[in-house]
Structure formats: structure tokens, C-alpha cells
């Protein structure tokens, strides 16, 4: 949507908090733990439906005409607000819900134990990535959306309800972030500041990949993940900034990211 959205990190955190607290309550009631996966998903959907449409309709909708950088600042302001809203709702204490994580046990590959839950996460991510690519490139809705992003005015002239496309896309994008947060929640302790870490990381991912490119994002995520693990393994001192280093290197060689789209020259 040509929006560099800092609020995305907030949705990740919101999803994590909603997932952790709702699933925690579910398990505390003694309800079947196997259903907790569904609860995680439902929590993410609920929390997105509460926040995303409101933000899009009340604030972002009026900002699309503005400069990319101004939109970045607006979402940054929203991010600051949401960060405190999260603290107001859930307090500053960490949440732990490890049940969905431990429930599946682990399996071993070549003598190394690996938690099954993580494997399922990887599968889910692949599924969503593939699904999104299919949605964007193979369906009518996806094609219209790409047209809307390319030129909202012409799309509107052709009878597309541009406002609704923006609303649905923003909500859907936020839902993906919330789902990611919710499904990651069982593997970590959910603490304030979760959104900050993830947003800076995901920016590195999309910038490495090239803004607005789906295969780019996938490749960027892979690069960031591998680089980080390798550095943790061999040179833990540099773990904090190695990702930014990679990002700076990629930008130095390919100024618009690996899979960048061509920009028309402004004359």
C-alpha cells in the first residue's frame, strides 16, 4: 500500500498479548489444551478487529495523499500510543503461556532435539506466504488490489471501491502481524517492548528484500534469520548489530533492495 507502517510492531505485540492472556485463561479453566491453538488464532483475529479498522478509518484514511515519510511519522506516533495502551491493558508484568509449546514435544534430527511447535510455525509461515502470493497474483481481488496500489485515482474511475480496499488490506496486513505475535507468544515471555524489537527487525527484512516485494520479503527474512543464528553461534558479540550491518551492505550494493521494483523518474 506504499505505507511504511511502524504500527505493525504494535499489532505483533497486541497479538502476542491477546494470545498469551486468552490462552492462559483457557488453560487455567481446564478446557482441552489441544484447542489452545484455535484460541491463539481467535485471539489474534479479535484483537485485530478491535484496533485495525478503527485506526484505518479514523486516522490513516486521511493520510494516504501525504508523503511516504509523513506516513511513516504518523504510524510512529500511533506506535507510541499503542505501546502505552498495551501497558494500560495488560500491565508491565511478563506473561508466560508455554503449554501449546510443550504440548507437542520435540523430535530429533541427527542427534539434535528440535521442538515440533517451531516446525509447525515454519510450515504455517510457508503456507501464509504461498497463500498471500496466490491471493495477490492469481485472484481477481489481488489483481484489483495491485491496481489500486499502483494508481488509486484510475482505479476509482474504473469503479473500484478504493476506500474499502485500503481498509481490508490494512486490516488483513495487521491480522498477519497479530497472528505472528500470537503464535510466537508461547515460545517467549511476553513483555513490554516486544513490538519495538520486531518492527526494527522486520524493517531490515523488507528493506533487504525490497519494499513491496513478496519474494524479497521471504528472502530477506531468510537472510536475516540465518545471519543472526550464525552470528549467535560463532561471534555472539556482534549479534545486536550484524543485521543492520547486512542491511547497510545490501543497500550499498542495491540501493532499493534485492527485489526492488522499478520507480519511474520524476520530471
Amino acid at each position, binding site marked *: 500500500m506504499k505505507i511504511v507502517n511502524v504500527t505493525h510492531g504494535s499489532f505483533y505485540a497486541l497479538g502476542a498479548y491477546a494470545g498469551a492472556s486468552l490462552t492462559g485463561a483457557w488453560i487455567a479453566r481446564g478446557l482441552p489444551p489441544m484447542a489452545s491453538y484455535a484460541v491463539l488464532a481467535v485471539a489474534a483475529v479479535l484483537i485485530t478487529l478491535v484496533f485495525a479498522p478503527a485506526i484505518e478509518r479514523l486516522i490513516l484514511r486521511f493520510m494516504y495523499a501525504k508523503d*511516504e515519510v509523513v506516513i511513516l511519522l504518523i504510524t510512529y506516533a500511533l506506535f507510541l500510543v499503542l505501546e502505552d495502551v498495551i501497558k494500560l491493558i495488560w500491565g508491565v508484568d511478563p506473561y508466560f503461556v508455554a503449554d501449546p509449546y510443550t504440548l507437542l514435544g520435540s523430535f530429533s534430527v541427527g542427534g539434535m532435539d528440535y521442538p515440533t511447535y517451531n516446525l509447525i510455525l515454519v510450515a504455517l509461515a510457508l503456507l501464509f506466504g504461498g497463500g498471500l502470493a496466490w491471493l495477490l497474483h492469481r485472484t481477481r481481488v489481488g489483481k484489483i488490489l495491485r491496481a489500486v496500489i499502483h494508481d488509486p485515482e484510475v482505479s476509482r474511475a474504473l469503479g473500484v471501491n478504493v476506500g474499502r480496499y485500503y481498509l481490508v488490506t490494512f486490516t488483513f496486513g495487521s491480522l498477519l502481524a497479530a497472528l505472528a505475535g500470537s503464535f510466537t507468544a508461547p515460545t517467549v515471555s511476553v513483555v513490554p517492548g516486544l513490538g519495538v524489537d520486531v518492527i526494527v527487525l522486520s524493517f531490515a527484512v523488507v528493506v533487504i528484500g525490497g519494499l513491496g516485494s513478496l519474494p524479497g520479503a521471504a528472502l530477506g527474512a531468510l537472510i536475516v534469520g540465518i545471519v543472526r543464528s550464525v552470528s549467535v553461534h560463532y561471534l555472539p558479540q556482534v549479534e545486536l548489530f550484524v543485521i543492520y550491518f547486512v542491511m547497510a551492505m545490501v543497500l550499498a550494493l542495491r540501493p532499493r533492495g534485492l527485489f526492488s521494483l522499478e520507480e519511474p523518474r520524476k520530471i
Partner: protein
Amino acid sequence: MRQDRTPLVLGATLAALLAAGPLLPQWALFILTLAFARGLVALGLMLLLRAGLVSFGQALYYCLGAYAAGALGRFYGVSDIFVEMLAGGAVAALCALVLGFLLARYRGIFFGLLSLALSMILYGLIVKNEALGSTDGFNIAAASLLGWQPGEASLRYAVMAAAAVVSLAAAWLVHRYLGTPLGRLAPAIKDNEIRVEYMGASARYAVHVKYVIAAALAGVGGALAATTIGHIDPDMAYWTTSGEFIFVAILAGTRNVIAPFAAAAIYGAIYSTAYDLSPNTWQLSLGAALLALIVFLPEGLSSLLVRYARRP
């Protein structure tokens, strides 16, 4: 052509501050000095904003300046505030000169995010460096001025006075720079870079120069903040610090060199009040204020001044 009143206003502000200083309570002097430090950084950001560039990594130079000042005190026993500010500015400018060759090629989002990445690299470097105190940072000795060591009571006033002199002098220099052909290129670069090139000017060179000036100002601001607070830590390079500076720069707008300092003072007031009233939700207040600013006052404080001045 209307007479340029900026030097007059700057001089009057300086005189008023120096005269009112002894009457102000210690905490007000502290906030005022920090406002000058932030104002200096915002002044540099303003230069870049005029060219349509938003640096999300100005904290890089702020932190470099602070650590340069800190290192002077810690390893060489220098505590003179002017030497520290000079060193902070010089180190930052040198670093920007080198990084500028890379950054001057980028515009828009990429400029912002790359500068963010660079500042986070510095953050990571300092956190991992035991000699510089890692995440704890280290303390800085009280400032002295040109060989004079002020006592406990007059220290805050003396530092504030030094800050005011340096800041307003910097504001005047920037004002002069804005009048030069190179300074006047900035809005043109924002509007249409290709036409700038057609005119025979180099956009990349102009951006590079602005970037170095902005960095030097941020370095001086960082050194000033370091001596004022008396403590430095790597959080000064964290990207949320850059966010603060952008807040101040947006609040100030780009039309006037005094506005960044006024905006920094207002920011300090908002921040202190919000923190005082509800320590857990100051980010909320700040975010809401930033949002309101972008919606209702997109050109910043300085546009208010201009609007007011144009009234018959």
C-alpha cells in the same frame, strides 16, 4: 526586500536568557540546557528536512558527540565544556563525512532507514564495549569553562549560558548558510532533483554538505547533553532517541532557525509534564501530541510565526 531580523531576535534571546538565568530555579536551567542540546540536533535535522530528507538516525551523531566528550573527560581529564563541544562536533562531522559518501545517494524512506541502521550499529558497538561501560555507560565530571571551575550553585547557570551562546551562534551560522546558493538548493532538491541536476548543481554534493553540518550540530548537542546530565549511556544512540529529535524538528518546521530551540523547549515541557502526571503513559501523550501536530500544524511552529507576521 524586508530587512533580516534574525540576528536581532537571536541577540535579544541570548541577552534575555543571560539576564533571566540567575533568577530561574535549578531544574528550569537544567531543562533549558537540555532544550538547547536537543534544539541543536533539531536544527541539523531541519537542514535535511528542507531537502525532504528525514534522518531516523540522528541519534548516531548525538551519541558520538556525547561519547567523544565523555572520552575526553575520562581518558584525558579534559572537562572544559567548549573543548568538549568542539570535540563532539568534530568527531561527528568526520564520521558523517565518511558515511555521507554512502548516504548522499539515498532519498526518502531509504535514507531514513539506512541512517537508522547506522545508528543501531553504533548502539550495538557501544553495548559490547566494556571500556566504554557497556549498557551502563559512565559518568562525566562537572564542566568547567575556559579554565574556570564554577561552584555547585553557579554550575547550572554557567553551563546554560555556555549552551545558549554556542547554540544561538550555531543558529546564526545556519541562518547565513540558508542564504547561500548551496543552502537555497534544499527546497529545490525536495521538489525535483532532476531539475536541480539540469541547472548544473549537484544534488548529491548538496545533500552531503547538509548531512555533515547536521551531524556536527548533533555532535555538539550530544556533548552538551552529556556534560549537562553528567552521565552517558548507549541509549543515546537507540532509535527512539532519533524519534525524539524528529518530533522536535517536525514541531519546529523548516522556515526559521530559532524555531528548533523553541520546539525543543516545548518538547521538554510536554515530556516533563506528561512524565510527572502519569509516568507510565508518557509515550501515549507524546504520540498523541505528535499525531495532532502532523494533522493540525504540518508546517510546524515556524509557519505560525510566518502566518502571524504576514497579518497586516
